[in-house]
């Protein structure tokens, strides 16, 4: 094949599409991610709209229906003081999801900036940050979390900030590794030769190359965060009752696990589903955001 025909043939495949459009096309081909996205959208809608449509408020008590299993009037059942568990689950989902998203965003932001600085500059600054990362990773975060939550935490935002301040090293370590790998690549030298500033090189030239691992880990964080929040809630150290979160709901159900397992299984099912959805969406995003994965 001559060069000309080769070029012409290659030319045919290069239909101009914007990056966002291409990414969306790639994402759509990822079946599990699409299913996860739809499921997550449905759950979010239920959490947001559900309580508003329900005849009950999350703290309304129905003394004629105490501690019931699922029924038509109360699809998820009621708790021992007659509160509707469906409304409580949806409101709980709302809080849990909000906390998880906040944690994921905060943790990723802190971890990315610190990891980028440490990886790009290396030297003494990098070594110092590395030691801090290691310190945070070996300290049992749950114990610190329990102490901090007992001292400061009761609002959903406070919980999120405390968790983020403890989990950023997870992201920082990954970003640091990627920056170490990319900072010596020739395109970084080329960018410097083109007169780009250090900040520009870090955040505009290298960071986009690291999006894949960051996005995947941010979505993994959503799962971790929801589970951590639930753990705190279960231990009674999370968001204070009567405000429900998915973790609080499981904690409240523990008295009746034998007789009415649905009270634990339903919020538990939501926790598992949200976590899985977040992970699948992360997978899809990683492929979608990597331009070299274009198969068309």
């Amino acid at each position: 094949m001559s060069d000309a025909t080769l070029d012409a043939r290659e030319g045919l495949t290069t239909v101009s599409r914007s990056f966002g459009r291409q990414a969306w096309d790639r994402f759509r081909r990822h079946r599990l991610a699409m299913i996860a996205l739809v499921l997550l959208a449905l759950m979010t809608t239920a959490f947001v709209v559900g309580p508003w449509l329900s005849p009950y408020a999350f703290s309304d008590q129905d003394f004629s229906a105490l501690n019931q299993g699922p029924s038509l009037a109360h699809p998820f059942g009621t708790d021992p003081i007659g509160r509707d568990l469906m409304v409580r689950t949806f409101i709980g989902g709302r809080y849990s999801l909000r906390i998880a998203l906040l944690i994921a965003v905060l943790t990723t932001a802190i971890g990315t900036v610190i990891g980028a600085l440490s990886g790009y500059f290396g030297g003494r600054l990098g070594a110092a940050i590395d030691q801090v990362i290691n310190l945070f990773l070996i300290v049992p975060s749950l114990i610190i979390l329990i102490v901090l939550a007992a001292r400061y935490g009761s609002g959903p935002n406070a919980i999120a900030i405390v968790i983020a301040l403890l989990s950023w090293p997870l992201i920082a370590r990954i970003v640091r590794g990627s920056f170490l790998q990319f900072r010596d690549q020739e395109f970084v030298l080329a960018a410097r030769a083109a007169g780009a500033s250090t900040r520009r090189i870090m955040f505009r030239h290298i960071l986009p190359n690291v999006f894949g691992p960051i996005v995947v880990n941010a979505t993994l964080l959503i799962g971790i965060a929801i589970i951590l929040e639930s753990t705190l809630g279960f231990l009674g150290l999370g968001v204070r009752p009567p405000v429900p979160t998915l973790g609080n709901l499981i904690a409240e159900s523990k008295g009746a696990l034998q007789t009415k397992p649905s009270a634990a299984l339903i919020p538990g099912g939501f926790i598992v589903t949200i976590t899985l959805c977040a992970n699948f969406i992360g997978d899809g995003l990683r492929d979608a955001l990597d331009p070299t994965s274009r198969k068309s």
Partner: protein
Amino acid sequence: MTTPLLEVDDLRVTFRTDDGDVRAVQGLSFTVAEGETLAVVGESGSGKTVAALAIMRLLPRTARVEGTIRFRGTSLLDLDEDGMRDLQGDDLAMIFQDPMTALNPVFTVGDQIVEAIRTHRDVTESAARARATELLDLVGIPEPKQRIDNYPHEFSGGMRQRAMIAMGIANEPKLLIADEPTTALDVTVQAQVMEVVRTVQEATGTAVMLVTHDLGLVAGTADRIQVMYGGRLFEAGPTDTVFYGSRNPYTLGLMASIPSAVGRTARRLEPIPGSPPSLIALPEGCAFSPRCAFATEACRDEPELRVVDAASGHATRCHRAEELPDLVAARATATAGSEGGAAEPGAAGDGAA
């Protein structure tokens, strides 16, 4: 104008390592005039790339750079970071060896050229894009309007190197430093890329400093050649003078080791024996003497770079520069004799003839 575009005087680059100081460039002085092409030739480790990076101020902070580098009268080593950044990619541009890794994989080729333009020129996105399309066309990318939205991985190696060149010349630099621009490419593409460089030069009047180990590449391209060895300048002069009247054993050795694709019966390639010197412990005296066929006692003292022909500016660093043509001719005859006349005299002999 009498001030050269680039004036390097007594450039010394030292890297501190645990094993000792690596003296990568030692006392390098040269100039580049506006619009000319200077080829800097040498083996790996001869200091040619380090010198190029020193001019661009792209060496890591562990490098100690001394001497003076003047670009259009401005001392580059005294500029602050901002001042240097203003020059980098604008009047002073560089293209790199490996087109596979020198483009950012997550941005389209167009985006990268546009960025190069907009870093230095206050133009709109669409104006920069139009300019980028023009540049891609200039460097011979087919269908530049479509190709501008391709990612680097959708380009072939030769096309990537062309895109790199387009990026390098985006702001019509006064000096383009090309570090082994064709090494990673196959031979046919090499010729095309060099053609592109020449076209660009004609269009923009850019001076090119071509850093390469490939003498063949230099022959048709450069106005002047500068041969480096062990961090020092070994020979410098107009291309033809160096090719046909070299007064340096190292240059002759380099030329004898290039395979020739044209004409004549097979001739034996003559490698230069040994390997380039360690830059930590350079040999006493002439750095090339341990590998040199013509070395004598005198070579224990380091020769100065001296001008052998004032008219052309031909300079060499060899004690035996004057007698070299005779020495080479004598050696060629001896070699031919010992091989029963089967082999033709090496290119070294031809070169000196």
